[in-house]
Structure formats: C-alpha cells, structure tokens
C-alpha cells in the first residue's frame, strides 16, 4: 500500500485539481480551517470552484483568499456574516450562493458520506429556502426533503493525525471537519501534529483513517481569532 503522507500541500494536491470542481472545506468561522491547503489551492490557480463551507473565511484569511482571487463561482454555505467581500459579491450577482440552514448543511454532508441520497427535516419549512423542494407530512408536521452533498475533494484540518490518517480534533475546531472528511471522493487532511502509528489512543480517534486519503503536516498556522473577547482578571490575581 502506498503511504498517505505527503511532504507538502502542493504535492498532496497533485493530480486532484481541475477547473469547475467541487471542494468541501472544514471550519467554523476562522476556527479549524485547513489553512495550509487553502493557501496551496490559491497558489494552484484552480478556478470556477463550487466550495462547500459553513463560512467563507474573513478579510485576508482562509477561503477569503480564493474568493478574493476570483477562483470561486458558487458557495454552498450557511453564514456570510461579517465577510464584506462575500456579501458584496453576492449582492452584486458576481457570486452564486446556495444558502443552507447550518444544521441542514451539516446533515446533507453527513448524508453524503453515509450514502443517504436524501432526508426530511422540519428546518426551513415555510421559508424561501424550502421553495421548490418536495415536502411531506409526518405525524401532522411538514418536513422538507433535502439532498446529500458530496465533493470531488474534501480538505479538513485536525489537531493530531497519524500516518494511517486517523484524526483527532481539538475543542471547537472540530466543527464541520469530521463530516466533511467522510463526503469527499478524495479527502486531504492537514494536521498540527503528524505522529507515528501507536501515538493516538484508538478510543479517542474522531475520524478513522479510512476516510483520509492523503495527510500532511500543516505549516505556518496563523489560527486567527475573529473576536477576541475576555473578562477582567479579579483584582487579587492581578497583584
């Protein structure tokens, strides 16, 4: 068996990219973003992308780099929030957006990875996001049919990973990464700590290595914080 470990992001992406492809990218806000692989995607110049990600980075960070570089044609997301470029491109018609409720987005990806082509959810019933989608009543309530999401390539970020592709995420940097790892035709993981087999406690593995095709040691993590919020230290501790 060929090893899953690649020396660089560029090497790991080799042979996988084509214009018009669909890419899933993990992360919530700026937490748990595959920073190294996103930068390599920017460098590759691949275009006309459909990107599935909860957000689209923020000024100068994460997927914003691809948006700013004109590489993204369509976003499938739940939140635009404080990303001015995303909002402007969408409102001016320069970017296609398929907006999903966040839980529906997560479940569509989970369904994609689990081989379930569609499911019903109450979320969005009676709103414009359900327009055109089949609805059905179950026990007196209206549910909307949602379809699975799969991608040509999933890029995810974990805290630790071994050479077999087993992954462990850290705190809320987990978010969309585990489901996205299951829903790519090819899944690329970048980790802060690439470790040897036997270093991870099997009971603690979040993503089993079967889902990960290629893995790299991530580099130059900025791990930017969008909203640093603190509380004052109690007076006694300040002394």
């Amino acid at each position: 068996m060929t090893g899953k470990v690649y020396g660089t992001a560029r090497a790991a992406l080799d042979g996988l990219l084509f214009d018009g492809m669909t890419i899933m990218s993990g992360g919530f806000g700026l937490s748990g973003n595959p920073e190294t692989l996103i930068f390599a995607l920017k460098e590759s110049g691949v275009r006309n992308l459909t990107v599935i990600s909860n957000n689209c980075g923020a000024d100068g960070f994460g997927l914003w780099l691809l948006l700013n570089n004109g590489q993204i044609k369509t976003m499938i997301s739940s939140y635009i929030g404080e990303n001015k470029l995303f909002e402007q491109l969408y409102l001016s018609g320069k970017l296609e957006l398929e907006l999903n409720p966040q839980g529906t987005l997560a479940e569509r990806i989970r369904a994609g990875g689990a081989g379930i082509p569609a499911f019903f959810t109450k979320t969005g019933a009676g709103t414009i996001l359900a327009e055109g989608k089949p609805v059905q009543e179950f026990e007196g309530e209206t549910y909307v049919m949602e379809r699975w999401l799969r991608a040509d390539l999933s890029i995810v970020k974990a805290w630790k990973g071994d050479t077999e592709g087993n992954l462990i995420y850290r705190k809320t940097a987990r978010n969309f990464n585990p489901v996205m790892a299951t829903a790519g035709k090819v899944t690329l993981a970048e980790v802060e700590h690439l470790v040897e087999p036997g270093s991870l406690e099997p009971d603690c593995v979040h993503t089993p290595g079967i889902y990960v095709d290629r893995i790299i040691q991530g580099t130059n993590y900025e791990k930017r914080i969008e909203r640093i919020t603190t509380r004052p230290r109690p007076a006694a501790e300040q002394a």
Partner: protein
Amino acid sequence: MAWTREQMAERAAHELKDGYYVNLGIGIPTLVANYIPCGLKVVLQSENGMLGIGPFPFPGEEDPDLINAGKQTVTQLPTSSYFSSADSFAMIRGGHIDLAVLGAMEVSESGDIANWTIPGKMMKGVGGAMDLVSGVKHVIAVLEHTNKEGESKILKRCTLPLTGKAVIDLVISDLCVFEVDRKKGGLVLIELAPGVTLDLVRAKTEAAFTNGLPVRKDGQ
C-alpha cells in the same frame, strides 16, 4: 423608561429553569448568560459544537480552537463536551435543547420570525437560526420594539423573508413582553417595562394583541 439591552437580556433570563440546556443567539441573547439566576443549573450549548460554555477567558488566555457560535473566545468547564456540527444539529433538530433565545428583525402575531436578510440590502445568511427555531422546545425572540423610523417591528405579518413560521413562544421587546399562542396564533401582552403604558404599546405595535396584564389592586 424602556428596558435597555441588558435589561431585556435579564428579563429573558427569568425564563430559564433549573436543568435547562439553552442556546443563546448573537447580540442581546448572548448577554442572557450574565443574568442566570443564582442556584439555577443551566448548560449553554454552542451550535459550532460545544455543551457547557464557560466564561470569557482572561486576557492572554484566549484559545483560537475554543470559540462560541458568535466567534468570540470562550472557556471550557469541567463538565464541558465537544462534538461535530452534525452532532450539534442532531441535538438541536432532535428536540434535546430546552430553550433558545434569538435576536429578530421582525416577529408576527402568529409567531413567525425574520432575522436573516433584507433582500438586496443585507445578507448575513441563516446560520443555525432556522434549525434552532424548528427544533428547540421553547423559543424566545428579543428585539427592539420599533425600527429607527419608529415603525413597529411586531407585525401582523412579517415583511422580510422568514426564518421560521409559527415558532416563537415569547417576544421580549424594550417596551414589553408578549406570549404567543402558537396553535391558534395571537399575542397576549403579559408585562410592561417600568414606566411604559398600555397606550404606548398600543401606539407602537402593528400586530393585534390581547391584554393579559395582571389587574392591579389600585385599578390602574
């Protein structure tokens, strides 16, 4: 005197019950965490994958891997747990969360809520709001009673695209509190902010409502 943002959050905190699992939206709802009544055990859920949100960190102890759904740095508690976005929304959609407090741009007398876009002008995206309103057992909407032009945001019908239809149980504005009868539709005024009169609420509210204020002994 109308309620301030903090006082609206404090009023919303009165709805908390011991043992509740609670999701707080961005803005005023986040402030509810500051007013959890003493002695009440409440577990806060963050839809990006955490149960048991701790207080904001001390300066210098921020962790980029530990944020709430509003992207603010937070801390963990000894009883906290982390999970994926899919697990988080299974929790929400599956009806395991007791209470959600959400900000709103408009609410209607039938319990509809709009809080995600002004077509052509503003597009924040829906985030987890649609999932929360359809899956959480009790939903409170918190909003300013009127917009900058002084027009009512509590309406017969919402004018903005909906987040959810007939999903709100309680509306807390800076002027008053309305209960929503989700089955039959209709608002019941149950409380006024100090110094706010019934006439003022009537003048500032487009939606129809019935007066359910407790009758005062002095006949006022």
